[in-house]
C-alpha cells in the first residue's frame, strides 16, 4: 500500500480527467446552477433577481405541485413493484437455453428499444375511445367502454400500463444475468435434499439474487420518478391533472410559464425525493447484507 502510494504520481490523475470533466460539467455544475436558479425570480431569457426561498414557498403552496407529487408517488408505488415482479417472473420463466426462450427474451426486450413516441402511439391505439382496441373489445362483449385516457384514475393507470410494457426489458435482463450467476451446486444440493420447487425458489434463488432485486428496485424508483413523455403524449396530464407527474409540472412551469426559478425549486424537491429513495434502499440493502454476514 505504502509502496504503491510512494510510486503514484499526480500525472496518473490524467486518466480520470476525461470522466471527471464530463462529471463536473454535466452533473455537478447543473446541480449547483439549479440551486442558484431556484433562489431567483428568473425566466429563460436573462438574469433574474434574488428571492431567497420564495420559490420554495410558492411551490409548496401550489396545490398543482402537491397533486403532481402525489401522482408521482402513486405511480412509483404501483409501477415499480409491477416491474420488479413481472421482470422476475419473465426471467425465471426464460432462464433456460433453448431457441424458444432466446427468441422470447429478444421479444420481451424489444419494447425497450422503442422511443417514447412510438410506445405511446401504440398504446393510444389500445386505449383511445371510439376505434381503440379496448373499446372494440368492450363493445364486442357488451360492456360499456371506459374512456381510459380521459377518466380520472384510469388515465394514470393507462400511462402505467404503457410504462411497464416499455420498461420491462431491463429488469428482465438484469434478473436473467443474476440468475445465471447462481452456482449450480446449490441447486444440486437442493435436489439431493428433495426440495420442492417453491422451496428452491424461496431458499436458493431469491436469496441469491437479493442484491439484484434491490438494484432493480432502486433503478426503477429513480427512473419512474422521472416519468414525463408517456404522460405528456398520452393524457397531457389530464383529466384535472390526475395523471400529471412531477417532471411534467416542472416542464410546464419552466417552459410554458417561463417561471424558471419556481421550476428549479420544484426540481430540487424531486432531486431530494430521488436521493432519499435511493439512500433508503441503499441503507436497507447494506443492513441486510451485514446481518447475513
Amino acid at each position, binding site marked *: 500500500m505504502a509502496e504503491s502510494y510512494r510510486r503514484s504520481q499526480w500525472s496518473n490523475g490524467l486518466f480520470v480527467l476525461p470522466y471527471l470533466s464530463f462529471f463536473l460539467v454535466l452533473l455537478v455544475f447543473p446541480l449547483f446552477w439549479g440551486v442558484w436558479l431556484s433562489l431567483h*425570480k428568473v425566466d429563460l431569457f436573462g438574469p433574474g433577481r434574488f428571492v431567497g426561498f420564495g420559490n420554495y414557498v410558492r411551490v409548496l403552496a401550489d396545490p398543482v405541485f402537491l397533486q403532481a407529487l402525489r401522482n408521482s408517488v402513486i405511480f412509483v408505488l404501483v409501477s415499480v413493484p409491477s416491474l420488479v415482479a413481472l421482470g422476475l417472473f419473465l426471467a425465471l420463466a426464460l432462464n433456460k437455453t433453448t431457441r424458444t426462450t432466446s427468441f422470447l427474451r429478444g421479444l420481451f426486450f424489444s419494447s425497450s428499444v422503442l422511443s417514447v413516441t412510438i410506445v405511446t402511439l401504440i398504446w393510444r391505439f389500445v386505449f*383511445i375511445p371510439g376505434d381503440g382496441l379496448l373499446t372494440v373489445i368492450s363493445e364486442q362483449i357488451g360492456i360499456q367502454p371506459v*374512456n381510459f385516457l380521459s377518466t380520472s384514475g384510469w388515465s394514470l393507470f393507462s400511462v402505467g400500463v404503457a410504462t411497464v410494457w416499455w420498461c420491462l426489458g431491463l429488469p428482465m435482463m438484469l434478473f436473467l444475468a443474476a440468475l445465471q450467476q447462481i452456482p449450480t451446486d446449490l441447486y444440486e444440493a437442493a435436489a439431493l435434499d428433495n426440495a420442492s420447487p417453491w422451496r428452491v425458489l424461496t431458499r436458493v434463488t431469491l436469496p441469491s439474487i437479493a442484491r439484484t432485486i434491490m438494484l432493480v428496485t432502486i433503478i426503477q424508483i429513480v427512473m419512474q420518478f422521472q416519468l414525463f413523455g408517456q404522460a405528456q403524449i398520452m*393524457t397531457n396530464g*389530464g383529466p*384535472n*391533472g*390526475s395523471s400529471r407527474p412531477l417532471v411534467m409540472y416542472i416542464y410546464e412551469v419552466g417552459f410554458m*410559464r417561463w417561471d424558471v426559478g419556481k421550476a428549479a425549486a420544484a426540481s430540487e424537491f424531486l432531486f431530494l425525493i430521488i436521493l432519499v429513495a435511493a439512500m433508503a434502499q441503499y441503507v436497507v440493502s447494506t443492513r441486510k447484507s451485514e446481518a447475513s454476514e
Partner: protein
Amino acid sequence: MRRFLLSTAAVIALTCGTSAHAQTKIELQRFFGACDADYATVTDVSKAVGECGIITSLVNKFEADNPDIDVNVTTVEWPGYDQLNAQMASGAAPDVVSMHYSAISDYQSRGLIDPIDDVLSAQGISPDSFTDAARGGVTKEDKLYGLPFDNWTMLFHVNLNLMKEAGLVNADGTPILPKSVDELIAQGKQFKEKTGKPYLVQILANETAAYARVLYTLLQQQNSNFFADPTKITLNTPEAKNVVELMKKIKDEGLTTTGLDYAASVTAFTNGDGGIAINGTWLIGDFVAQSEKDGTALAKGYTVYPVPQLYPGQDSTYADGHSWVMPHKDRTPEQTEAIGKLFKFLADNDYEWARTGHLPAVKAVFDKPEFKALPHRENIAEIAQTGRSLPGAVQRQFAIQDIIGEEVGAAVNGDKTIDEALGSAESRINDLLANI
C-alpha cells in the same frame, strides 16, 4: 499524388465557396403539420388542400421562384412555443417563426422578436393593406411585430345529411341552428332522438384550447369583461358559471361526443359520428374536399356557420390569428432581404392561404372574385365583425388557456364542482400573471 490532393482540395473549396455564396439560407420554423409525403415537391399551390398542403406548396413555390434563396423548413408540434423558448434561450432561434397573435406580447415584451416595419416597407408592403383585426393582432407599441397571415375563430361545422335526418333543416336547405341556450339543448335532444348520435362533436380530451375558446366566446356573448385588467382575470362570475353549467349539461345529457382528442374529433366528424363539430376555420377546406367525395359521411352535405349567438348580450366569437415573426438575432442584409421577399410572397398569396378556411389578413383578398366564390365564405363573413380576441396586453395566453381548459374540463367531467373549478382557475391564472 501531392498535386492531385491539392487540386482536389481546391476544387472542393471552390465548390463549397460557390454554393455558400449562391444561396441565401433562411431557417423557417412553423406548426401546421408535416405532409411531405404528399406535397414535398408540389409547387402548384392551387392543387394543395388544407393548412399543411398549402403552406408546404407555398414555400416550395417561393423557392422555385427565388433560386437564390434556400428556405430550410422545420416543422414543430403545435404550437411549438416550448421548443422556440429553448431555442431562444440557447441563442439558436430560427429566422422566421409562425406565431399566434395571442403569443406575440410574451415575446415582444421581452425583446425576443424584432419589429418588421422596415422589412415590410423595403418590399413596398403597406401596413394599411392588412385588415384592422389582423394588423391589430401584430401591432405592439405602434410597431408591427409580425406579418399577419389570417384571422381564425371556432365555427359550427355542420353535417347536413345528419341534420336532415334529425329534421333540423329549413326548406331552403340551410341548417336550423340554435338562437339561445334552451334551443341548443332542445335541438340537441331532437338530434339525438332522431339519429341516435350526439349533436356536437367536441374536443374534450387531451387538449385544453377548445374548452378555453368556447368559454371566451360565450363570456363575450354575455358582455363579461373578464380581463378588464390585463394582469388579472375574473372568473368567479355568474356569466362564467352559466357557460360551464351549459357545457356540463351538454355532456351530462349525452349531446356531445366525449373522450375525443383533436385528431379523433376530426375523424369522428368526417365519419358522421355527430351533427356539428365545434372546430376552427382551418378545417373548412378539408371538410369541403370530403363533401365533394361520394360515399363519405359528408358527401354533398357539409356547411359551416359561426358559433351562434346563444346569449342576448352581443354576437361575438373569440378570434385569434397566425402571423410570421422574426426572432431577435444577427442576420446578414441578404438574409433580411430574403425574409422580406418571403413576406411579400406570403402576403401576395394570402388568397391561397385563405382557401384553408381562415379569414384573409390582406384586405384586397376579400374583393377577389375567386375568394368570393369559395364555398361557404358568405356564411362566415360576419366573423370579421364579431371576432374578438383577448386584450393584447394579456400575457401568457397559452398558459392561461391550459389552466382554463384543465379546470373547466374538470367541472364538465364532474371531477370538481363548477364553483371550485372557476375559483381554482381564477387563482391559478392570477398567480401566474402576478409572477411574470
